[in-house]
């Protein structure tokens, strides 16, 4: 495949990560990208001394999150739910997601935490669903992005500089 084409695809993918319109309903939701500026910071840290930095961090994020999500599902499945533990897990997930810049996951976690404080079981379950959903969405996109990057590099091109301005 032509490098230029892949590069364009990459641009699209990046764009879609940052600018996402959820649904063009009569009441338009806020424009919230999957990733925020933190991710760009991470990209900046990647250089010759640390060529695989982003990939490493992203993989670590996936592992961590999946583990946490499993733990959360477990904890909420119990008869006597230990909200403190649930809260601790969600806190961890929030920390990870904000470090990597996955802002929708982070926002979902924030909502989750408030319901934990209220000890509202149904709401917590709903939140868990949402967090999972968001996580899978961002995971897919990131995997696509990283795949494209590998392809570009493999084809000898260079990854375009992304200027964000809206």
């Amino acid at each position: 495949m032509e490098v230029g084409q892949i590069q364009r695809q990459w641009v699209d993918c990046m764009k879609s990560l940052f600018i996402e319109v959820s649904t063009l309903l009569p009441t338009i939701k806020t424009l919230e990208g999957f990733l925020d500026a933190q991710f760009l910071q991470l990209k900046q840290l990647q250089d010759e001394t640390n060529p695989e930095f982003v990939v490493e961090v992203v993989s670590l994020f996936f592992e961590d999150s999946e583990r946490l999500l499993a733990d959360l599902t477990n904890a909420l499945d119990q008869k006597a739910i230990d909200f403190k533990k649930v809260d601790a897990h969600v806190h961890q997930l929030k920390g990870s997601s904000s470090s990597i810049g996955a802002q929708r996951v982070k926002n979902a976690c924030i909502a989750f935490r408030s319901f934990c404080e209220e000890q509202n079981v149904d709401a917590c379950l709903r939140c868990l669903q949402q967090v999972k959903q968001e996580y899978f969405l961002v995971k897919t996109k990131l995997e696509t992005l990283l795949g494209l990057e590998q392809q570009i590099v493999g084809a000898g091109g260079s990854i375009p500089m992304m200027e964000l301005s809206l």
Partner: protein
Amino acid sequence: MDCNCIEPPPGDELLTKYQYISDFFIALAYFSIPLELIYFVKKSAVFPYRWVLVQFGAFIVLCGATHLINLWTFTVHSKTVAVVMTTAKVLTAVVSCATALLLVHIIPDLLSVKTRELFLKNKAAELDREMGLIRTQEETGRHVRMLTHEIRSTLDRHTILKTTLVELGRTLALEECALWMPTRTGLELQLSYTLRQQNPVGYTVPIHLPVINQVFSTNRAVKISPNCPVARLRPQAGKYMPGEVVAVRVPLLNLSNFQIYDWPGVSSSYALMVLMLPSGSARQWHLYELELVEVVADQVAVALSHAAILEESMRARDQLLEQNGALDRARREAETAIHARNDFLSVMNHEMRTPMHAVIALSSLLQETELTPEQRLMVETILKSSNLLVTLINDVLDLSRLEDGSLQLDAATFNLHSVFKEVVNLIKPVASVKKLSLTLHLAPDLPVYAIGDEKRLMQTILNVVGNAVKFSKEGGVSIIAFVAKVESFRDARIPDFIPVLNDNQFYLRVQVKDSGSGINPQDIPTLFTKFAQTQSPTARNSGGNGLGLAICKRFVNLMEGHIWIDSEGIGKGCTATFIVKLGLPDRSNESKAPFVHKILGNHGPTNFAGLKVLFLDDNGVSRTVTKGVLVHLGCDVTTASSSEECLRVVSHEHKVIFMDVCSGIEGYDLVERIHQKFTKRQDRPLIVALTGNTNKVTKETCVRVGMDGLILKPVSVDKMRGVLSELLEHRVLFETI
């Protein structure tokens, strides 16, 4: 025994008999008088001359006794009788002489008693007369008081006057009493009120009659002739002599000439009160009656003035009530309008921005796709128009907030030079398209850093420079920025501008000169009015919403400055100048609470090569990310995922420990233990907390447990760079929360 008595001649038996009888009666009288005296003295308690009476009594008794004894001497009598007789006579002689002597003393006394009595009687009569007078005066006083009371008990003009006449008539038993008031023209006196006749005829009399002038010239009651026009009120009663007439002036006070200190001397108009005694009564006007009349006239004047004042104040009060009502209504309307506008604006804000963002976002995405040139042009136009629209919305919102006064400027330290450079960078593309030169000149004494609202300052500069570029077709735009000296403010163009500076402030002056189409000097005042576009077709109608300069002006005003535009005329370009007040970052403040934001660009050591840093965080991803940042900066990073691990690994080689304190209290505990481990201060690593919490409690706790610093997540590379250099320089860094 021989008796020495001479026998009376025998023919005198008749005489002897009469003598005998007379003596007898004398004796009787003489005896009864003292009895009477005694009786009456006993009756009277106050008689002071008892002693005299006793003497007198004795004298009379003895006289009586003598005469009694004399009865026996008419016939032959014995010696005993003669002796008794002699004794009696001797005693009588003694007593009577004594009494005579005593009387010399007491008769003058008795006489003086009489005179005293006379004197007292006279005095009593005099007092009676005076009593009569006082009583009369008191009566008069009572009448006056009553009159006054009656008069002053009402504040209605007519009632006052009517009452006056009635009461006066009653008190003084007048036949007629009348009041003449000046007409509107002031040239005549009109009969306004009378006592007896119910309907005044509406008679008028010219005011300048001598008798009237005479009365008006004094404040005393004046006796006038019953034949003068003002007194001829009733039909001539025939044979009787008309009673005496008295007239008095009543000062009428208008509000305009009511002067407290001069009253009532400066009255401009008077009324005339005429009082007539009953005809044929031969009564005269007494002095006290005249006084009464004068007093009443004064009281009436006062009462009338009060009535006038009351009327005036009632009128004023009614007026005020009306005005209050109107103001209230106006205020409510204004409030409703403001509420409506605020509601409108807040709705506008949200509802309009959201679709706009969608439009802009999608148009820009559309731009990136495959488009035909035609389509591309359309999309570009759409994008341009929507950007303009968003700007307009933002401007309108800003402006309304500015006008409300709800906009507050931020105050932070920023790089002044870079603001200008950024503006130039932004405008350069546009300028180069139009082939305009863009020059920037920053004065050498212009501080690099300043305290103020960076965003709004940039907005202002951008707007001004943008305008300059927009309206220039050729030539160039030059920007000059320097520190304004206080003397330069005595500029005629900025009246009322009093520069107030303290030591850490300065005035920034920016002049933007363009070589464009210039402005008609007449249009200059309207430039800063919102929505006003100048009428001239050649200039300034190539877009723009007319709000830009208005907003700039308001920002400049908020920054306590001034903005103005000069132009020599059409085609001669124009110069926009503004002055704003900015703060100077104080050198001494920095060490206390250094602003992390200020470290922009590459300041300080950028390579912390080999700096040993320990980072504690229990979240794997965060650990990796932050480690990446620190490694990027060249540090030698050790990570720990728990307090125990941290304590195990920490050594005196580590210069800084970054601790994520989101996880709770164990972090603070750890600080204690590290302090214990490293007793010597210079060996101890600096402990800095990393937190996402923006509440003061966290900061206070950090300070309390003895941490050396606190920074907020997220930490970018630049921020970390700044943080490390600060820490190494000052050994403390607490980011403001």
